């Protein structure tokens, strides 16, 4: 067996059925091993597309996402997707071909030190130096990507090692001891919970990583604790939970942000006090003690001190919290906040109102459907106005905020979940960042639905220019966009353009009932902003609103 054949064999043993990639010189032995193999390869049209397809595959299933690229530019094109996976703790295995061992360090054709480049954007990375190490490295890499706090792992394999005969290697048992919750910390948490009058649960992406939605909902239903979610956590708290306040932070709901600012105990469950969540950190939940639950000890105290910390898999740690019931006065306040700050969709104009469109889409698409966003205003509108029943149904580039994420992530999700509807919601800026992947959709007849909210602007940057840069609209005008429906048609994808509010309902019906891929191009007002907004340096209860 060659090194390349061993790779494919081990992926199959791991249960990997699909991989994404793009061939090239230094990875040709691996592509030769793929020929006729039980692992199906999906050719994307750019390595970044392969990387994000692997991310979408992983995030929509919890399984390992795998991407391949050749040396040099192939490998560097993966880097953005790996950085994205690192920020959002996504289990991805990246396999890169490398020039032959003897040529490394000689500035050979398509030679780049991808191992060096990987240091800041992977959980771990390897360059295989000896053929006899390959089996162990690959198994360790897959284990690392999926275990503990998940993340991307890169394995760089020189071409000669792909071609070398490698010895048989038994499947390794790589399970290690898992961190256990400290009884002392549980006791501290119990005391804080017993004393709290105004607790709030602050839910993060760790709930999905730990597959702990059931444990979370059990905790919330028993305690009736009000809950706020990060962008990545949306869907973790079921939409019918009475005290769900939705997303907090820079573009969070006012009720969510006010509740956090007023709370006296913040129970942080798999979140990391990201700056887009906290606003001015010194003023964030300033009246609150903190109980922090996370599998990663480095997150505890990194941004905000915790008075009690439960360091373990959330599936183990959440049930350790006692089942007290939240004070009824606080719950009354929460209900009033929800009512007072409920979203409104009675937009007076004739133009398409993006929040209304997305809210209708959310109501008309199946609960099991997946929405993949790009980055910008549309991403925040999705987070505000769509409801999700599981975090694996909402794929949004959180920590990295990568434009170009949505389309390839949707490809990965659609391949991973062929029976579920997958919809990309993008903007006219973001969609162009990986537009070449329309060819991947067509090549594989994937029924991915695409919604483009087109304001002919880089909307979020334009909004900031309006609010914080004296209306100096530097390089945000995209009024020379292509005709997106005509562009999709070139790839054999049908669609329509809408411009008026009275076209929205029918257009969404057409989109969600279309059998194959479909593009809905919705022209919206270029002056529409995302509200509310916590301005830079402000506390989360100092939100700007449309009326302000």
């Amino acid at each position, binding site marked *: 067996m060659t090194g390349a054949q061993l790779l494919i064999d081990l992926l199959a043993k791991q249960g990997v059925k699909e991989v994404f990639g793009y061939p090239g010189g230094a990875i040709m032995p691996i592509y030769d091993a793929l020929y006729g193999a039980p692992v199906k390869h999906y050719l994307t049209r750019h390595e970044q597309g392969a990387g994000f397809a692997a991310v979408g595959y992983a995030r929509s299933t919890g399984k390992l996402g795998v991407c391949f690229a050749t040396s040099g530019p192939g490998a560097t094109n993966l880097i953005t997707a790996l950085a994205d996976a690192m920020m959002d703790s996504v289990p991805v295995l990246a396999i890169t071909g490398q020039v032959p061992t003897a040529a490394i360090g000689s500035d050979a054709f398509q030679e780049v030190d991808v191992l060096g480049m990987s240091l*800041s954007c992977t959980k*771990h990375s390897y360059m295989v130096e000896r053929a006899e190490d390959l089996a162990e490295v690959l198994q360790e890499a897959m284990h690392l990507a999926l275990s503990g706090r998940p993340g991307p792992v890169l394995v760089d394999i020189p071409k000669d090692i792909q071609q070398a005969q490698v010895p048989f290697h038994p499947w390794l048992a790589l399970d290690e001891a898992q961190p256990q919750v400290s009884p002392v910390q549980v006791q501290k948490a119990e005391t804080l919970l017993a004393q709290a009058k105004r607790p709030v649960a602050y839910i993060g992406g760790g709930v999905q990583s730990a597959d702990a939605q059931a444990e979370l909902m059990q905790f919330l239903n028993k305690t009736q604790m009000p809950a706020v979610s990060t962008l990545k956590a949306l869907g973790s708290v079921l939409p019918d939970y009475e005290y769900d306040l939705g997303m907090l932070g820079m573009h969070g709901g006012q009720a969510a942000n006010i509740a956090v600012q007023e709370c006296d105990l913040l129970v942080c469950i798999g979140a990391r006090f990201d700056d887009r969540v906290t606003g001015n950190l010194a003023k964030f939940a300033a009246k609150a003690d903190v109980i922090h639950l996370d599998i990663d000890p480095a997150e505890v105290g*990194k941004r905000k001190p915790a008075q009690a910390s439960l360091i373990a898999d959330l599936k183990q740690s959440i049930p350790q919290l006692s089942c007290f019931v939240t004070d009824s006065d606080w719950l009354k306040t929460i209900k009033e906040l929800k009512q007072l700050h409920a979203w409104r969709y009675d937009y007076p104009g004739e133009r398409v109102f993006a929040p209304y469109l997305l809210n209708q889409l959310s109501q008309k698409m199946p609960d099991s459907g997946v929405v993949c966003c790009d980055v910008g205003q549309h991403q925040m509108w999705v987070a505000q106005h769509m409801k999700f029943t599981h975090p694996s149904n909402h794929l949004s580039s959180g920590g990295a905020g990568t434009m170009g994420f949505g389309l390839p992530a949707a490809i990965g999700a659609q391949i991973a979940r062929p029976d579920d509807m997958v919809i990309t919601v993008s903007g006219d800026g973001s969609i162009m960042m990986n537009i070449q992947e329309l060819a991947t959709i067509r090549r594989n007849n994937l029924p991915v639905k695409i919604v483009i909210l087109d304001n002919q602007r880089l909307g979020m940057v334009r909004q900031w220019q309006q609010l914080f840069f004296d209306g100096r609209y530097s390089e945000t005008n995209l009024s020379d966009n292509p005709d997106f429906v005509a562009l999709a048609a070139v790839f054999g994808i049908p669609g329509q353009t809408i411009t008026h509010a009275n076209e929205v309902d029918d257009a969404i019906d057409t989109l969600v009932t279309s059998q194959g891929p479909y593009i809905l191009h919705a022209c919206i007002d270029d002056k529409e902003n995302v509200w509310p907004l916590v301005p830079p340096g402000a506390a989360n209860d100092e939100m700007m609103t449309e009326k302000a």
Partner: protein
Amino acid sequence: MKHQLTVAVKNHAIAVERFLRVARHRGFRLTRLELEGKDELFHVKMTIDSDKPIYLLTSQLSKLVEVQQVNLHTLQQQAI
């Protein structure tokens, strides 16, 4: 504030580069470095300087796959 750390890290070519990158990126300035390869491990003594709490570095270093042990040896307050 200056701190002295000793770190035992697997004797892999990339391992030292990896944890030095973490120290720099997390805002800890390296002022002295000694490295000795012995058997399977590198033993690294490093003096670092930062206004940040040292646990923000040790907790990140401890997560690295190749890092076997992190010890904080001295902790002395000095004028910067």
